[in-house]
């Protein structure tokens, strides 16, 4: 039977390791994705509704469940190499999470001189859901 539990604090059975449920929920990742920007395929994801190729080095994502505003936090990781140990990841590689809104964002990869697609791209989104 499905059930709803309303509680402010969780502890273990010995009353140790107390944590407020607000900490658990605020600290939970609201979306994450590991994808290949060269063909816009997702290796795995959570709470990603769609992925679209915007331009070289730019991929647009939408959330399945939206965030409450555009001020959420996210990590950025991109690697142009498709295999471990490849020297490609030594090249200048930067980028950012651009045009973030409550409904999605654009993942932007840059190699120091131009936009570039990467084989392994990761981001994790933290913040408040709508």
């Amino acid at each position, binding site marked *: *039977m*499905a*059930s709803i*539990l*309303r*509680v*402010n*604090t*969780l*502890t*273990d*059975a*010995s*009353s140790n390791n*107390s944590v407020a449920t607000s900490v*658990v*929920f*605020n600290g*939970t*990742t*609201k979306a*994450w*994705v*590991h994808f290949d920007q060269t063909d816009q395929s997702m*290796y*795995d994801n*959570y*709470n990603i509704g769609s992925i679209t190729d915007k331009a070289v080095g730019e991929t647009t994502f939408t959330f399945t*469940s*939206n965030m*409450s505003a555009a001020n959420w936090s996210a*990590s950025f*990781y991109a*690697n142009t*190499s498709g*295999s*471990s*140990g490849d*020297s490609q*990841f*030594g*090249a*200048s*590689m930067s980028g950012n999470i651009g045009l973030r809104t409550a409904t999605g964002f654009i993942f932007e990869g840059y190699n*120091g001189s131009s936009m570039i697609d990467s084989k*392994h791209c*990761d*981001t*994790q989104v933290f913040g*408040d*859901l*709508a």
Partner: protein
Amino acid sequence: MASQLKVDTLTGVTTAGSIVVTGEGNSTTTNLQQGLCKAWCYFDGTAGTISFSDSFNGSSLTDVATGQYDISFSSSMANSTYPCNMSDADRNDNRATFPNDGASCRMYNRMGIDGQAANDNDASQAQFTAHGDLA
């Protein structure tokens, strides 16, 4: 009324690995298990024998080579496609992560941006996180 729940294990009723949580804005929901960070650690990769300064779900660290480290998980991931990140203190270094499999992940720390030669380089303040699905 404030409340406190004393429990050692949380399990979904309909599906053991799925508990729905109402979002902060009170209108959408998220999945507790899917959103949890599944592993994290902090260590000094320059140490003669590397070890966790702090960690969660990390069973061991292996010094594979200069600037290359393997973290083994206590509880394995379900696949080798999980997203993971590595960070360090040196802004001149670049990092990469590649899951070896569900049981471990390799981290690489390499000099190479700003026109430097691309040489593997030990990380003094290595930080790692992994999200995804547990086995």
